[in-house]
Every structure is written in C-alpha cells, then in structure tokens.
C-alpha cells in the first residue's frame, strides 16, 4: 500500500469501511520507513512489536482509532528512549507517558517511531542533533528545518501520516514550511507540556505535523485541554475544531504585517506568499496592511528569554538521576563539569552560557528584565492588530531550505531563520504553516510556507482560515 496522499481523514474512512485494518496501516508505515528513511534519516528509533500489539487491539470507533503517530524525541513515551538527540540522555528510558501521549492513546492513536531533532530543540536545521543529520525530502543536500526536522521530514516524505513536535520559537512551523507539510503551534496553555523535556518554559508548546489542515484539527482535538499535571495549561473548554473548518473567509478581515516582508528575504518566497494573499482576497476576505512595530526586536528578545530559561531548565542534567555521567570524577565539581561538558553539544553550551550570563548578578536588569518588558510590547502589537483583523498572513520563513552546513559556522545567521515565527511564541498566540507553492533552486522545487496567526485560544478560527486556502488550492 502506497502512503502518498494518505491523510488521517482518508485512512479513518477506509478503516471504518473495512477496507483497511490498523495492522495493515501500521505495516504500510513500517514498510515506508524501511524504504524511505535511509535517504531521509528522520527517525531515531521505533518499536514495531509494541505498536503492532496496540494495532491488533485498536478501537476503531475512537476518533483516531488505529492511526500511527510519530513522536519527536523530546516527548516521553513510557518504556521508550527519549534522547532529545543529545549524548547526555543516551541510555535513558522514559518511566511514564507525556500527557499528549496519554491523550493520543485515549483517542485510539498508536505512538510509533521517534523523530530526530536539534539537541534539546535548540536549532533551526536539525544539524545540532548529536545523533545524525536529517535530510530534506525534496533535496537530500538541504536541511529539513528545525528543531522538529525529523517530525516534519517523515510526514513530508510519506513515512508517517502525522507526528508531534514542539515549538519554542518556530520549531514546528519552520520545518513544516521547509519540508512542505502542515505544522500547527497551538496557543500557550492550550496543550499540556507534562512529559515534554523543557527548553524554555514560557514559550514551549506541543503541536502536530500533518498532510492537511483537516488532519491538524483532528490531532489537536485529541491533545488539547487542561491537565492538572501542567499548571500552565488553561482550564478553558476545547471547541470542536472540525465543526467550522469549512466555514470559509468571506467577510473576514485578514492583516498582512508590513514588517514581515523584509529586505533580504527570498524573492520567490515573497512571490508565493503574495499570491496566496491574493487567493484569500479572491475568497472574499478583506486584506488590510497592519503594523507590528516591535517585530525587529523579536529575535534579540527571544535569545535572552529562551536562553535564560534554558540555562535553568538544563541544570537538571547533572549526571545524578538520569543520563550519562563522566567517568571517575575527582570531586563533585569535576563530576558536574565533565558530565555536562562531555554530554552537551556546542549549540546547547552556547545557549546555557548566554542564558546564565543574562541572568547573572549585575546583568539581570540590563538584559533579562529589559527583555521581559520588550516582550510586553511585542505582545501588545498583536493585541492591537487583532482589534482590527481576524487573522494575520505572512511568510513562515524568509528563505526556503538551505544547504546542509551552510549556516553552522554562524549562530546568529541560524537564529535569524526564525525571524517570522518567534514573535508568536513571545505573545502566546497560535500559528500554523501551510504549503503555498515552491521556490526553485538548483533545479529542485523547494516548498514555501504560508504562516497564518490568530489570537490566543482561537485555533478554530486559525484552522478555518488555513483550510480555506488549502481547499481553494486543491480545487
């Protein structure tokens, strides 16, 4: 069975009509991994026998009954490794399920396969994985984006129907754009992070990669909602995300933030996004230019706040309770220093050092406190924009997938890859990237992503806006 073009919605119809069994579907995914993953390298590990046992007794009456879902290797699945693509977590076995995994299982889905990522979700190309390099399915010489590069690549390469990733500054939306699939970052507080290895606690969110907006709605439905185990998940009702999916954008006001079309962005990316905006106009949406004046400070603001939080979160990797420990330490300081020095990769070290510095005595007010105030202004930009418009349209990434190795020697250049996605995390709003055509480079067609953003907890509206474009493009 060929998985190309197989969506969750279609697989569900086939399963319920008796044309496909959960075991057949799992076997098809497993076969696709065996055929395709040697070229893509999106997966780190998988436990076929366990998934097979789950498929054999899958309850197909449930919303995701019998659907395998790949999981980024930063989310705990009981009994499986959770390496975070780091040497420091080699040999770790998760003793529990993350809440999103518990919820997926409750909806009938089968967690199957762990995907590669930038170490501890720090990066924009998945090249910071300590385990291996994942390749863009459209061009093996190019990166898949990051940090959830494995989760994006396996969906785009038809080695998975859907996957979960995490998004701290664009780590779902940017790789979705660069690989050519749908990637949804829910609002801060919409999905529980219990069992997600923390990078930056005020920014991290878990969300799905899928082939279609319709499928993204199905997965979000399963994982959204309040969780007493994550005190930052808000106790607000979860609407039916599929109910208004096809409501269209007639009469909606959609904003185009002028700061998201900048000098230096790829002209083909700009052209595809402008064409997509015209499609929305054709569908009856009113297109208005808006301004988010503090956009240009978002990357700098993020690299203070995210690294500060990371330096605190990664203190737990001390070689005492889990993970690798340096051999034969002289004393406790030597134990800590060498365990962490040997266990963490370069980018993680850079961020821990920067984060420690901006929080250190004498610099806290100048860096961290100032960054938190600028964050207020960035957030206010969105609040004011959403008083005028229902949603925002922009490119997801200023460039299509770049070549492996191209940005590794210049961290700042890599950080700027997330220039259009970071502000949504700082503001806590929701965003989605959907494919909107290709840019050509070296004879290869590289996907371009359109980003739609909507106010916090307005995922139903976000999905409806995204779906309108997807449906128009398919027609």
């Amino acid at each position, binding site marked *: 069975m060929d998985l190309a073009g197989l969506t969750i919605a279609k697989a569900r119809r086939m399963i319920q009509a008796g044309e496909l069994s959960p075991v057949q579907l799992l076997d098809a995914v497993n076969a696709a991994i065996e055929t395709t993953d040697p070229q893509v390298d999106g997966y780190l590990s998988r436990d076929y026998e366990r998934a097979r046992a789950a498929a054999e007794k899958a309850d197909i009456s449930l919303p995701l009954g019998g659907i395998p879902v790949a999981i980024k290797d930063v989310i705990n699945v009981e009994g499986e490794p959770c390496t975070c693509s780091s040497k420091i977590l080699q040999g770790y076995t998760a003793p529990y399920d993350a809440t999103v995994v518990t919820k997926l299982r409750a909806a009938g889905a089968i967690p199957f396969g762990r995907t590669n990522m930038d170490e501890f979700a720090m990066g924009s190309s998945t090249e910071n994985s300590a385990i291996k390099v994942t390749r863009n399915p459209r061009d093996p010489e190019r990166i898949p984006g990051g940090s959830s590069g494995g989760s994006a690549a396996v969906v785009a390469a038809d080695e998975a129907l859907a996957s979960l990733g995490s998004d701290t500054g664009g780590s779902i939306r940017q790789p979705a754009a660069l690989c050519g699939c749908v990637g949804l970052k829910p609002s*801060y507080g919409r999905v529980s992070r219990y069992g997600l290895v923390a990078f930056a606690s005020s920014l991290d969110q878990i969300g799905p990669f899928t082939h279609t907006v319709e499928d993204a709605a199905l997965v979000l439905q399963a994982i959204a909602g309040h969780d007493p185990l994550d005190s930052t998940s808000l106790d607000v009702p979860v609407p039916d995300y599929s109910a208004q999916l096809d409501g269209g954008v007639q009469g909606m006001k959609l904003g185009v933030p002028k700061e998201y079309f900048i000098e230096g962005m790829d002209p083909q990316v700009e052209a595809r996004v402008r064409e997509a905006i015209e499609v929305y106009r054709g569908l009856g949406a009113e297109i208005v230019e808006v301004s988010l004046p503090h956009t240009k400070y978002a990357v700098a603001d993020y690299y203070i706040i995210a690294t500060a939080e990371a330096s605190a979160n990664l203190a737990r990797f001390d070689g005492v309770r889990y993970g690798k420990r340096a051999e034969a330490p002289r004393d406790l300081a030597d134990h800590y220093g060498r365990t962490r020095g040997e266990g963490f990769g370069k980018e993680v*070290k850079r961020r821990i*050092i920067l984060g420690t510095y901006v929080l250190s005595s004498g610099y806290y007010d100048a860096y961290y406190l100032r960054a938190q105030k600028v964050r207020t202004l960035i957030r206010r930009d969105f609040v004011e924009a959403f008083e005028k418009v229902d949603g925002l349209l922009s490119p997801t990434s200023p460039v299509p997938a770049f070549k492996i190795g191209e940005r590794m020697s210049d961290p700042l250049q890599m950080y700027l890859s997330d220039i259009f996605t970071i502000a949504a995390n700082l503001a806590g709003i929701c965003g989605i990237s959907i494919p909107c055509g290709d840019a050509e480079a070296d004879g290869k067609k590289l996907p371009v992503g359109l980003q739609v953003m909507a106010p916090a907890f307005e995922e139903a509206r976000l999905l409806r806006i995204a779906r309108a474009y997807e449906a128009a493009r398919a027609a």
Partner: protein
Amino acid sequence: MSAPHLDVRYVADLVRLRLSDEEIAELQPQLDHVLSYIEQLNEVNVDGIEPTAHASAVYNVFRADVPRDRFTQEQATANAPHSGSGLFLVPKVVES
C-alpha cells in the same frame, strides 16, 4: 560604549560546564557577536512598561498536598548512572 563582552571561561564555570581551550576559543567570538546583536534592545523605550514573564493569564496554581500513586523508588532510580539501596549515589561531598 565599548562592545559587550562575556567571559566564556568564567560563566561556564558558574554553570558547571567544563570546556576545552579550543571550545572557549570558538565560543568566545560567537557569543560576543550574539551579544552585540542583542544590544539593539537598548533602543526600545521601556519606561513604565510592565515585564511579561509568560503569556497566559494564570498565576499561582495550587493543588492539594496529598500523596498519589506515582513512581516506586525502584522506578525513580532506574535511570540513575549509579544507585544502590533505592538511593542515587554521588561522589563524596563532605570531607570526613
């Protein structure tokens, strides 16, 4: 004003991160470069602006402090590099 500078060796020591001389030589200019970029936040007028710690309107969530069935001692120490008698074993900290 002079270019911002972060003493990598000193900060790495604060955060218990042992780095080689080669690593310090590589990280030093990269971090100074990032720090110079971050300096642009000084252009923003933040007078009278309240800081934002996180984006959701929820503060001080409490729960009842009651025991729950979670991990056994055995499960909790299963991933430890060194453990014994249900405890995490670490290098000697206090001199005798």
